[in-house]
């Protein structure tokens, strides 16, 4: 936002949100406009601030685990994985191989569920009503698998520090494989609906361009970075939870516009299916819980673990002073960092493009505000 207090006679300041349906929650964007043209934006965040990082300081390590699900509630399992890996790093333990394989399967399934919600709402913002119904239909099947596995659909609390609490239910592998087979043609169906559609292409092509250098400057990660042509995926770059065992590609595109980000995410869903198939075929036998005491009490120290969440790099930085409660927990949420690029992406564009760009950034306000 340009800091001029005085507006030109043709300029206008407009509040978008916090109750705007296309800001995906309670994001408020102050737009400075010249007619339809955007001269500058300012994001006002914090409407969903719950002080999650502070809550962590008053909870034991195990007790804080359900709270991380409530940051990025669309991809709760990824959050849980990041937190559990960070605490496990502090305790110098590793989850058993069987737990790692199940974690990978569920995280990839969650990536699909998250991307489906993104696709549905993004298309809804642009004006295509149909995809949201189809996407939620497919997402429902993924959520049913979560419910069968751990008993909750959204805020799952699926993983525990040191491994898993729940053993897979009977028919888990069959359910996952059936989902994979059923889901792949559905992705083609979405592509049929959208990829060539002239309104979709017209609204997305060359909108909200963010080049690779700009992405790096802003610290933008995830599909937004990959759509700009940077082949960076933490699952490949610093494999965690046994991702090095699976074969998959990092989909990238060159232009870095909204349309490319759409195509990258569509490819990512296919790659997730590929990973899930490999993981299900080779779930090792063995225990699911590592050697963790009843009371989790890491030594004095700190740990930072970042994982590739559906929205980008999700990092957990935990400091322990040797007590049963963390001294400090800091979360590096992908949505919050990606949102900072909004101004660069929409400056000079039209008001309707703000909606497209917020949609393509795939932000979840629970994670932005924490």
């Amino acid at each position, binding site marked *: 936002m340009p800091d001029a207090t005085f507006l030109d006679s043709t300029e206008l300041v407009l509040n978008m949100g916090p109750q705007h349906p296309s800001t995906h929650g309670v994001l408020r964007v102050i737009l400075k406009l010249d007619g339809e043209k955007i001269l500058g934006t300012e994001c006002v965040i914090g409407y969903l601030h719950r002080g999650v990082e502070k809550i962590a300081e008053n909870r034991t390590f*195990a007790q*804080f685990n*359900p709270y991380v699900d409530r940051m990025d509630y669309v991809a709760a399992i990824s959050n849980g994985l990041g937190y559990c890996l960070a605490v496990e790093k502090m305790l110098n333990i590793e989850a058993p191989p069987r737990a790692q394989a199940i974690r990978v399967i569920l995280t990839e399934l969650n990536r699909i569920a998250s991307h489906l919600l993104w696709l549905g709402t993004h298309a809804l913002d642009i004006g295509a009503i149909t995809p949201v119904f189809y996407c939620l239909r497919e997402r*429902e099947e993924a959520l049913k698998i979560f419910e*069968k596995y751990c008993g909750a659909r959204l805020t799952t609390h699926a993983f525990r520090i040191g491994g898993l609490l729940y053993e897979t239910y009977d028919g888990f592998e069959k359910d996952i494989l059936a989902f994979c087979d059923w889901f792949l043609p559905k992705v083609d169906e979405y592509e049929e609906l959208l990829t*060539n559609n002239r309104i979709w292409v017209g609204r997305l092509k060359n909108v909200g361009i963010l080049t690779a250098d700009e992405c790096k400057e802003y610290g933008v990660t995830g599909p937004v970075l990959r759509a700009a042509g940077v082949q960076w995926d933490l699952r490949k770059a610093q494999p965690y939870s046994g991702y090095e065992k699976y074969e998959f590609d990092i989909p990238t595109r060159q232009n870095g516009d909204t349309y490319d980000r759409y195509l990258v995410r569509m490819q990512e869903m296919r790659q997730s299916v590929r990973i899930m198939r490999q993981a299900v075929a080779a779930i090792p036998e063995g225990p699911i819980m590592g050697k963790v005491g009843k009371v989790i009490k890491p030594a004095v120290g700190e740990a930072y673990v970042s994982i590739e969440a559906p929205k980008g790099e999700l990092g957990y930085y935990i400091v322990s002073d040797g007590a049963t409660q963390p001294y400090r927990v800091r979360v590096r949420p992908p949505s919050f960092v990606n949102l900072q690029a909004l101004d660069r992406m929409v400056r000079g564009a039209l008001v309707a493009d703000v909606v497209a760009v917020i949609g393509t950034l795939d932000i979840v306000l629970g994670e932005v505000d924490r």
Partner: protein
Amino acid sequence: MKKLLNKIFLTDLFQGLWVTFRNQHPKYIYTEQYPAERPKVAERYRGAPRLNINPDNGETLCIACNLCALACPENLIVVTSERNEATRRKELTEFTYDTSRCMFCGLCEDACPVDALELTQDFELATYTREGQIWDRQMLEEGPKPTPYKC
């Protein structure tokens, strides 16, 4: 040339319409008619809490060890007990569970050493008052009794 023909004959739009047409078939109806048709939740579903009683003699299984209250991140469980002088054992007197603050994480049922506290498949927890959300021992043992829906 092909691009122009595509533009004139709206092939991209018809391609999309064909997808929606394929999905028109009644066998693709996924909507659940909720109050009339109750969903079957999974076996491991974490819903309303229940304090189990021994079916043989009707006595509570809870040993008043207070582990669930300590495990709860929201501190919403209050367990009170009293020492029975005859048997010299702790006996449960009151057990309150504030479902309005519960996030159904399942840590309390993990902590329970005797499987007395359990999260069940009941999911209809709405009440008319805030006080109604705070469940006492009797409510926890009997479970919620939602009014059945009549067509």
